[in-house]
């Protein structure tokens, strides 16, 4: 009968499960490239063990496939860590495998609050929506916006964002004029935006999955909402660096809050951009990429701390409480929640040197998930 | 008692009336022919009787029971069987399979799911009676020559042991020698089975029929003994032309 063999030498295998095809393929490509960028920069050997990545495609839509892939990776390929996880349901489906197999599971992209609670072996290097959203609500309230409509995609992260925004914004004395949820599939934003126009709020808060922001922003401009005096605020997903530049002038002036912008001004980020460009030329890294980069860093650091011992419980223990300076800024893996604590930036879309960037102009330090 | 009767049976297609208030009776054991020009509404009439088409107006009675609104299969259960002018067969089934299936349905075993089909022997006997060549019985129907398919068309109806049998041009495409055999098999059906024959082959019609109804433009043009029909000038003009009519 098969058995988990406790190998302490040889390659350290990481099972990386990502949506490499399907509607969320760009997430997978970014995370994967982020990891490759880290390996290129830091070498493939950690604590005397060669890092070996086994990449699997979960197509982004099938939790049972994700689960099966995780199961196979631990049973057959004997990976010592699971990583990746582009979407919440997929991460949730794999969580029991991590628990049962006792391997660390590093969530690099999925962003709903609950995920980390589903297994004591889960660690997160992406972000959570409440974490990114609350500062936006606070900023809006502090900058004289009293009356906001919200528009989010109707799935778990969207609901997280909606709730977080509402709580924080109303607590700060603001008013939610209208709450709209758009379907995940075939969203035609026109009718929703028409309602926003009818309601005439001072600003529209938006969360949509990355990639969708383009259509939404175009519609926003076409309907003349800006002329009607409605501002756009949102989380960074809307103005994803991946396609921000192609989205064009309609984005200019939009205010978003997020943990990473490719325009972040630091030595770490410049180094990251450089190695990333070697992996995926002509593509700007986005917040998914930095989640992959930092996730790889987290695994490597933990492995260093255990001196190459790949016991899952020891790895997780070693990872807890780690702090370092990431391309996005200073971050910490909370020792209790295993979730990420990081700075959130308020950014404005601006044109610099012919390209459009999210330029950070305000910072809320060390934000925790309040999910 | 009337085997099959209609009362003001009407069928319209859009603005076109294909069957126009036809009242018609078929007696038990009748050997009755229905003739008429092309497009007179004969096939439509059969479709109304068998339930393949719903009637626009009027009634259909089978042995005193109103079957106007019964679905097709219920009419078959009640003893009404038909053949089609254009072959309607199961192309991938062999003739033996097709007939076995029909017999099984007749015996009410079509919903049986826990064992195989029976009645193979009875099917073989029926095909024997119709002189259906042995070699053609186990080939897929689609590969059979046309004439053989016509014969199978009739075999399927006979397998149902109907009390009323509607035949829509059974002899078309069958050589005269064989069609005579077929008609003999039909004539040899039990005397209480009523048969309604639609046919354009006047030899066959006058050999077979004891009574003839002529349909034209959806309505009954004439009805009576073969001799009277053959002499009726209206029928000659609309349908028979100058054809010689054999008397059998």
């Amino acid at each position: 009968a098969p058995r988990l063999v406790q190998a302490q030498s040889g390659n350290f295998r990481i099972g990386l499960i990502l949506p490499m095809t399907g509607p969320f393929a760009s997430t997978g490509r970014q995370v994967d490239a982020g990891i490759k960028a880290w390996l290129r920069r830091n070498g493939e050997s950690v604590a005397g063990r060669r890092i070996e990545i086994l990449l699997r495609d979960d197509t982004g839509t099938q939790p049972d496939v994700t689960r099966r892939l995780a199961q196979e990776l631990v049973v057959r390929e004997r990976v010592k860590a699971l990583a990746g996880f582009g979407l919440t349901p997929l991460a949730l489906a794999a969580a029991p495998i991590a628990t049962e197999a006792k391997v660390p599971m590093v969530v690099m992209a999925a962003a709903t609050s609950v995920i980390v609670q589903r297994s004591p072996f889960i660690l997160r290097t992406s972000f959570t929506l409440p974490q990114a959203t609350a500062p936006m609500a606070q900023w809006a309230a502090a900058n004289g916006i009293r009356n906001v409509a919200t528009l989010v995609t109707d799935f778990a992260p969207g609901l997280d964002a909606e709730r977080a925004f509402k709580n924080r914004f109303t607590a700060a004395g603001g008013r939610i004029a209208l709450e709209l949820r758009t379907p995940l599939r075939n969203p035609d934003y026109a009718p929703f935006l028409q309602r926003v126009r009818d309601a005439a709020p001072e600003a529209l808060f938006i969360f949509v999955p990355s990639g969708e922001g383009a259509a939404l922003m175009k519609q926003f401009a076409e309907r003349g909402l800006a002329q009607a005096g409605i501002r756009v605020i949102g989380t960074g997903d809307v103005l994803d660096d991946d396609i921000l530049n192609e989205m064009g002038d309609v984005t200019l002036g939009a205010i978003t809050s997020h943990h990473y912008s490719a325009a972040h001004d630091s030595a770490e980020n410049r180094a990251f951009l450089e190695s990333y460009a070697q992996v995926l030329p002509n593509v700007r890294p986005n917040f998914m990429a930095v989640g992959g980069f930092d996730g790889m860093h987290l695994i490597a650091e933990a492995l260093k701390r255990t001196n190459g011992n790949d016991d899952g419980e020891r790895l997780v223990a070693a990872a807890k409480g780690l702090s370092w300076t990431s391309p996005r800024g200073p971050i910490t893996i909370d020792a209790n929640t295993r979730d990420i604590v990081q700075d959130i930036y308020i950014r404005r879309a601006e044109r610099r040197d012919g390209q459009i960037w999210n330029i950070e102009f305000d910072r809320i330090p060390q934000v925790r998930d309040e999910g | 008692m009337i085997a099959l009767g209609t009362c003001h049976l009407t069928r319209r297609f859009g603005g076109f009336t294909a069957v126009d208030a036809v009242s018609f009776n078929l007696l038990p054991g009748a050997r009755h022919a229905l003739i008429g020009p092309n497009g007179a509404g004969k096939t439509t009439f059969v479709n109304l009787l068998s339930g393949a088409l719903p009637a626009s107006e009027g009634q259909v009675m089978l042995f005193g029971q109103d079957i106007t609104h019964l679905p097709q299969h219920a009419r078959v259960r009640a003893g009404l069987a038909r053949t089609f002018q254009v072959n309607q067969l199961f192309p991938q089934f062999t003739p033996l399979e097709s007939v076995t299936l029909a017999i099984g349905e007749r015996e009410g075993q079509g919903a049986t799911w826990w064992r195989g089909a029976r009645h193979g022997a009875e099917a073989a006997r029926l095909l024997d009676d119709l002189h259906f060549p042995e070699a053609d019985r186990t080939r897929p129907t689609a590969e059979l020559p046309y004439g053989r398919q016509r014969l199978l068309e009739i075999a399927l109806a006979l397998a149902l042991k109907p009390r009323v049998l509607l035949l829509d041009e059974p002899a078309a495409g069958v050589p005269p020698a064989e069609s005579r055999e077929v008609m003999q098999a039909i004539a040899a059906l039990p005397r209480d089975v009523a048969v309604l024959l639609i046919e354009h082959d006047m030899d066959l019609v006058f050999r077979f029929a004891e009574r003839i109804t002529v349909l034209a433009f959806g309505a009954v043009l004439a009805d009576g003994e073969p001799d009277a029909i053959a002499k009726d000038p209206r029928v000659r003009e609309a349908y028979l032309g100058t054809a010689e009519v054999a008397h059998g």
Partner: protein
Amino acid sequence: MRIALHALPWLVAIGAYFAMPEQLPLLSAIAIAALFALSLDLLVGYAGFVTLGHAAFFGLGAYVAGILGQQGWGEPISGLLIAAAVAALLGLVTAPLVLRAGELAGLMVTLGLGLMLYEAANKAAFLTGGADGLQGVEIWPVFGAFRFDLWGRTAYLYSLAVLFVLFLLAQLLVRSPFGLSLRAIRENPKRAAAIGIPVKRRLAAAYVIAAAYAGVAGALLAQTTQFASLDALSFQRSAEGLLMLVLGGLGTLYGALIGAAAFTIAHHTLSEASPQFWQFWLGIALVALALLGRGGLMGALRRMTRR
């Protein structure tokens, strides 16, 4: 000789358990996909009724079994039976709608109903967990003795056993007069009605049976993975089931098994070898098969053995 041929797939399946102890999760996935394809074969292959919404029954079965397990009734076998019954009930309720419309429209009605159920499950998050999937499913050991383990041993043997039993039942069914009448309806519904076959009722029966089968397949998935998600109800699931069936060959029952195995293995191996571009190679395989082989893999096999 014939018997040996019939036993072959099952011997292979049992052999695989011993030969590939590390591939059991994949093998279970194949068994479940095979059962789903089998249920489609009854409906599409035999009765000739194409559906694009069969995942509705699969997903319903999955959620029923999953919710039972979540709410404290984790007994697997009764879970399967209840899932089958609920799926059959949905089949019974929707059959008149689907059959009313006729061929192309009926096909699209199945699609529409499937999509509606998907949306309903998405909205009913309190019951289904919505887009996050159903959490906290606990399934008890089979016969109180065999726990669903990490290696997937129990999962595989359990799925295989269920598949085997239902396959035998399906075989009985298609060889019976009932099965013959379904084929007759597929071949020529007009004549079928004229020899006294209640066409709609038979099709409805086939629809309900296929629904129950699909429900069991879904329940198996939920039980062996202890999880259920919206994707079990998705159009993609329906379409994939059809692909497997056509790939294997319609109207043979074995085609469903072979198609499910071939498709799942090809998908798995190709996507492992090339996580980004596996669809290219899978696509080439499907195109080639469609061009070369009439009657799918079963057709090709038959032609080979006839030589």
